[in-house]
């Protein structure tokens, strides 16, 4: 469910960086203001990371992995939980190259915000009824919704030519099935902790105000609409655009460097080839200089 | 009037879930004394260390460091009391050993270059300069202990509280740690359940009983008192 680089176009990637920055930034602000024990967020993040590595056997001989967004929300509260999941995802990206760097915003949005906040609210709504059920639904719906968002993002992206009508059902149905494991595990963990250390689940620090609640819900619900709108703007190739503005692409570089060696009206294919060859030579030259400089 | 390095008067600590941690402990340490707290597993040694160092606020009673109440002057206590945890993994939370050694100077606003110099100096002193770039989880148990000692002594605390410093280390590291404790320039309190190490550094022994309070305070001769030790569950 980690989206790699190259699947999302820059509109969608940028948009989700922005949305994630807003919610994550607000969470950090709340955690700092309310002096929540954020050490625990870092430690829990590493524990969730470890728990994600377990391979749970599922029928059919394959295995499923636990994601843990809803659990983070339930154990730490939504704000610290969101920070913890962001830590997990950033470390996965920068230490294990799991999930792309341009897609990091979207990945945190799906697994660190949608999964955490939705899971947390479902759990809060049901905790008085039945602990296991509350945990199960939080885990199951949280992860399925996160996957549906991932499907929306790659489906709307102009780079990935499968339409939303294919990506959303594929991601949604598949993760709704895998999500059962997530739900059962989350439910059992919550159930276990509620019988042995109920104080951990009750002492929930941060009160989420109603206005914030609604604002976040609206933000989450509307994010696919934003993504759709961002696509309409059609500004997905910043470098290409810069190049056009500078007029570089109209006057290929090789023409500038080697005006005498080119015959006017030369086959553009040959032109590209020459340009490519010159690039190769220059890169190799710079590389040689670097080798010398470093070897010094 | 004598000013004690550390003085606890009728200190009790009850955990939030109502478990008693320590019950009515009174203790006084003279400046430069080396004291061993001995007791069975679960007799409250670790809790006592946490209370004496001011990490846990006593439910009742007073802890004084050089005559200053521990909960009144936070910074004074932190600068004068160094604590070595039983598990180095709890203590070392930075990404690399170098960052670990830079943590304390950063807290004191010491400029970067000087902090780097301090870190190297203490690394040399404790023989850990070869692991400076490694993350703490890659170190051996003995190396971790030495990094902890380097971090703690960087502040040059006048009082050192150690919780099972020789647990899980090999013979050689154990000898080094005991020598370190013996030669440390200040007051040292060591909690342990290993009786054989006590004579190697301590001149005073505090025996704790299973009721989580102090049974008896005395010299090394208490180690010979089998009846006392047996009633406290130590042997």
């Amino acid at each position, binding site marked *: 469910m980690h989206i790699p680089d190259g699947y999302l176009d820059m509109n969608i990637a940028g948009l989700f960086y922005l949305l994630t920055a807003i919610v994550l930034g607000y969470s950090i602000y709340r955690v700092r203001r309310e002096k929540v024990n954020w050490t625990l967020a870092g430690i829990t993040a590493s524990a969730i990371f470890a728990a994600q590595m377990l391979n749970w056997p599922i029928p059919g001989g394959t295995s499923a992995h636990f994601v843990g967004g809803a659990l983070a929300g339930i154990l730490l509260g939504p704000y610290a939980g969101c920070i913890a999941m962001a*830590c997990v995802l950033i470390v996965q990206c920068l230490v294990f190259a799991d999930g792309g760097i341009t897609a990091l915003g979207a990945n945190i949005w799906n697994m660190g915000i949608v999964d955490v906040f939705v899971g947390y609210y479902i759990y809060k709504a049901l905790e008085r009824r039945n602990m296991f059920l509350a945990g199960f639904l939080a885990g199951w719906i949280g992860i399925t919704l996160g996957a549906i968002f991932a499907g929306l993002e790659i489906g709307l992206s102009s780079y990935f030519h499968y339409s939303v009508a294919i990506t959303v059902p594929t991601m949604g149905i598949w993760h709704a099935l895998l999500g059962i494991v997530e739900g059962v595990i989350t439910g059992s963990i919550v159930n276990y902790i509620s019988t042995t250390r109920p104080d951990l689940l009750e002492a929930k620090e941060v009160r989420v105000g109603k206005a914030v609640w609604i604002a976040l819900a609206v933000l989450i619900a509307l994010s696919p609409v934003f993504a759709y709108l961002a696509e309409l703007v059609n500004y997905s190739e910043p470098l290409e655009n810069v190049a056009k503005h500078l007029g570089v692409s109209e006057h290929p570089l090789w023409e500038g460097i080697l005006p005498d060696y080119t015959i006017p009206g030369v086959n553009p294919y040959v032109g590209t080839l020459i340009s490519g060859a010159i690039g190769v030579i220059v890169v190799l030259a710079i590389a040689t200089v670097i080798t010398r400089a470093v070897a010094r | 009037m004598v000013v004690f390095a550390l003085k606890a008067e009728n200190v009790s600590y009850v955990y939030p879930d109502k478990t008693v941690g320590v019950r009515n402990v009174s203790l006084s340490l003279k400046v430069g004394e080396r004291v061993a707290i001995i007791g069975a597993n679960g007799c409250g040694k670790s809790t006592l260390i946490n209370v004496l160092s001011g990490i846990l606020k006593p439910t009742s009673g007073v802890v004084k460091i050089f005559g200053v109440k521990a909960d009144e002057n936070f910074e004074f206590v932190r600068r004068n009391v160094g604590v070595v945890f039983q598990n180095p993994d709890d203590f070392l939370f930075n990404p690399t050993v170098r960052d670990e050694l830079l943590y304390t100077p950063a807290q004191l606003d010491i400029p970067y270059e000087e902090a780097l110099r301090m870190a190297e100096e203490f690394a040399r002193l404790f023989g850990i300069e070869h692991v400076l770039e490694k993350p703490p989880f890659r170190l051996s148990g003995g190396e971790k202990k030495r990094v902890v000692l380097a971090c703690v002594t960087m502040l040059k605390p006048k009082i050192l509280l150690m919780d099972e410093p020789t647990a899980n280390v090999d013979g050689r590291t154990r000898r080094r740690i005991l020598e370190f404790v013996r030669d440390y320039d200040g007051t040292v309190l060591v909690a342990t359940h290993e009786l054989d190490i006590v004579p190697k550094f301590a001149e005073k022994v505090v025996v704790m009983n299973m009721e989580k309070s102090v049974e008896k305070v005395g010299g090394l001769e208490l180690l010979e008192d089998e009846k006392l030790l047996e009633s406290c569950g130590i042997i």
Partner: protein
Amino acid sequence: MIEKTIKTATEYFQNFFSYDYHPKGFLQSVDTRVKLVGMIVLIVASVTTFNLGKILAILFSSLIISKLSNVSFRDLVSRVWLFTLFTFLIVLPLAFVEGFEYVLAFTLRVLTAIVLLQLIVLTTPFNELLYAMRSFKIPEILVFSLGLTYRYIHLMFSELLRILIAMESRRIKKMRYREIWKEGGKILGSFFLRVYEKGENVQRAMSLRGDRIKFYSKPFKFGIEEALFTLLVVFVLVWWCSL
């Protein structure tokens, strides 16, 4: 379950230690901030085009960079092939609609971006990244939590594995899937309780050692390596534009 988990984990933890085991080279000596910005620019350049020439230009340059940085080619291939193949198979059906060139370009873009990301990972120790993030004004709480996450992953995993092995050693009957999940959930529950206590201990240690969140910022280095790296990136961009 245990065997599979250990296999996943060892593959994962190889990344953890990879920095130590590789000989140092060019990219390792470039200031992390400069490196991060340059590499991200290259990643963006590689994914925002479907022009095969442009993609190949960046792929070629990144392979040159990896050579300069003493990153072994075999190692790099072993880290990127699986995902590249996966991507290829996913977009393959589109060959009928969009043509094979689209499929090839899409896959190569993803491959190039992964190679570049792997180069960051392989040449930068994590604490350097943390320093860089601080210089980029990312909030301290997040940076410090990241440090804790990185620091404790290994410990948490060995703890979890110990619990799992203990469970396995006491298991007698063969369990059904649902039982495994439920039983596993209980074990994870006790694991998270231990985690909570560990968190409290670390919190204590932190308050002992001073709990102001404070970082040194490393002096910014812009020497010959950084200049050469910038030159290389700028050149690749110009080349990219001209193709």
